[in-house]
């Protein structure tokens, strides 16, 4: 099997490092790819489930741009809808009618919601949700889950990171996932002070097994929130439209006051949304919140096309099925080589970990070996499956995984 080289990626990165902080920053930084020298840094082309790097290597992409790609790269229907809208009007002095179409479509689609507000990034939606909770309750504090991610605003970052001050996280209380007692305790200890509870529909931290809510978790949390007047915020930025077209809260059987969407909503076109209940519409209307590009019409057209297509083909079922096959295949291959590959989370965005080495070094080596053979696997983050991944992709992925395990055995037996 061919082992890829990344000379051009490294070369370009040297140039980048001179003029861009970190060379590549944020979640795309190569730093958590272990080792980064086994990964491509720059993509030049993409189509369907694949992308091609600057060195000419082809990858079956199991990161899907960290979530935005859901129907496949360069999806014809979505791109056409966006192109047509670009042809008409995109970022103009007034919004385009497609904004209303998209809001209506979403309100019809997502149970328990009566309005939709559009922005660009997931972060835009989570900040707005937090402001809404505070405006609605006149309270300061927010409960969130340790290891949860809601974007890069100072309140959402963990203490100790650069650029933060103490006051940024003073009003954020972090509790463990799936721990109703801890939630109740936080509420009791801060009686009348909790504005909102923000969490992802299921727990998908990095570097740790992902966890579904325990039976009755969301239902109990919802009851406590109702009783205490706490705004319940579902951060569906990552899971949204991968588990359930009606939102992941529908999947887990609860109705939040606010839901944040991004990533899969536009198949790569920049758009996010905050949706909420009638009761909060007046409240959010009073908050001044906007951005230069938040009214761009082409991403809205793309989002409408993405959602319609996902619904038509029942995207979540396809991803569930593909993800399930992928995981089953990989687990068996690992077992054949004497390794235990543990999978967790939803099959459409699974987290994997070889349990034979708690330090994760073995798992990191395997992911790197797979990537160097054309299946782009990260070791620290949940993966993503799209509706564009084919049986052929899976078969090729299995061959790669098998070869990578052989390489691993050789390395560790030496």
């Amino acid at each position, binding site marked *: 099997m061919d082992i890829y080289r990344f000379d051009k990626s490294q070369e370009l990165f040297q140039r980048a490092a001179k003029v861009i902080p970190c060379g590549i920053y944020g979640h795309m930084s190569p730093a958590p790819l272990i080792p980064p020298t086994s990964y491509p840094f720059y993509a030049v082309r993409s189509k369907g489930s694949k992308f091609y790097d600057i060195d000419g290597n082809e990858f079956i992409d199991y990161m899907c741009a960290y979530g935005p790609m859901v129907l496949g790269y360069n999806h014809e229907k979505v791109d056409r809808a966006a192109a047509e809208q670009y042809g008409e009007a995109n970022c103009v002095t007034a919004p385009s009618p497609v904004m209303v179409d998209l809001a209506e479509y979403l309100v019809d689609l997502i149970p328990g919601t009566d309005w939709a507000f559009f922005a660009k990034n997931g972060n835009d939606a989570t900040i707005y949700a937090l402001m809404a909770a505070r405006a609605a309750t006149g309270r300061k504090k927010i409960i969130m889950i340790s290891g949860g991610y809601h974007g890069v605003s100072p309140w959402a970052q963990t203490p*100790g990171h650069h650029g933060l001050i103490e006051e940024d996280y003073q009003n954020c209380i972090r509790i463990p996932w799936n721990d109703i007692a801890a939630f109740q305790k936080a509420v009791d200890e801060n009686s009348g002070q909790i504005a909102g509870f923000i969490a992802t529909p299921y727990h998908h931290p990095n570097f740790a097994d992902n966890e579904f809510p325990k039976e009755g978790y969301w239902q109990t949390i919802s009851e406590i929130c109702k009783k205490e007047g706490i705004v319940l915020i579902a951060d569906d930025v990552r899971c949204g439209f991968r588990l359930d077209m009606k939102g992941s809260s529908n999947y887990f059987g609860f109705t939040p006051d606010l839901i944040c969407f991004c990533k899969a909503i536009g198949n790569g076109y920049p758009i996010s949304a905050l949706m909420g209940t009638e009761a909060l519409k007046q409240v959010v209307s009073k908050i001044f919140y906007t951005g230069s590009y938040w009214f761009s019409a082409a991403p809205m057209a793309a989002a409408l096309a993405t959602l319609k297509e996902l619904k038509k083909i029942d995207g979540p079922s396809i991803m569930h099925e593909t993800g399930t096959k992928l995981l089953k295949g990989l687990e068996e291959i690992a077992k054949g080589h004497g390794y235990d590959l543990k999978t967790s989370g939803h099959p459409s965005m699974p987290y994997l970990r070889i349990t034979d080495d708690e*330090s*994760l070094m073995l798992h990191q080596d395997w992911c790197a070996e797979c990537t160097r053979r054309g299946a782009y696997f990260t070791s620290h983050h949940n993966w993503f499956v799209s509706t564009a991944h084919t049986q052929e992709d899976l078969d090729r992925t299995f061959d790669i995984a098998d070869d990578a395990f052989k390489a691993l055995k050789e390395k560790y037996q030496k």
Partner: protein
Amino acid sequence: MSHELLTARLNAYAVLKNLEDLVVHDREMALFTKDWNIAIRFFVLNGPDAFVEFDSGKCRVGKGGGEKKSSVILFFHSPAHFNKMMDGKASPVPVKGFTKLRFLTKEFSVLTEKLEYYLKPNADLLADPKWVALNTRMTLTTAVWSIPELAELDPVANILSSHMGKGSISLGILPDGPKVNLTVNKDSIVPAKGEIKAPAAAMTMKDMTVANDFLNGRLDAFTAIATGDVSIRGQIPMVDTLSLMLDRIALYLS
């Protein structure tokens, strides 16, 4: 927590620790100290309490009284007093070992001046590979021995350390540079020199120059890791947390 107290703890437990390497890796100092047989105790009221022992060309620095009976006890009436002495701006009060005063003002101060020489960079020194090698080794030691103190007394490092997870982190410089490690237990963080078996996380720097730039904040971690100049493996959250904690050192030691 007072700023002076943490600075004093870092000076006593992390900076003075470098005397151990100074008498091994600087030829002149190795010769100069080879026959020393003395134990000095630095006792700071409401602050750190450290020993520096010399025996047959070896130096040991640590917390408390050490193995040898102290021949000299130096008293400091506050952490600020001790920090001033470390900056060369104050003298200690000897409470034991008056006969050794000459040793302290003459010989021992030659050693501490040499230590200072290796810890304070300038453009000329940075061009000297020998200086860089020892400065890097000392920066690494200072870094690792600062961590337990920061975790206890710096409010941000304290929060960070509580989420660090358990296990050992190894840090090393290739091809044959120094290796140190930190073991994070439930209630303590223990630094040590040398290699450790099956660490939970590892950070390796390509060579002395890279390590020097990296440890002194002249090389951005994300960039250095991406190019492979610095490699990290294993439980990366531990390395991330460690790195954020190391960034706190500059607030106390300038």
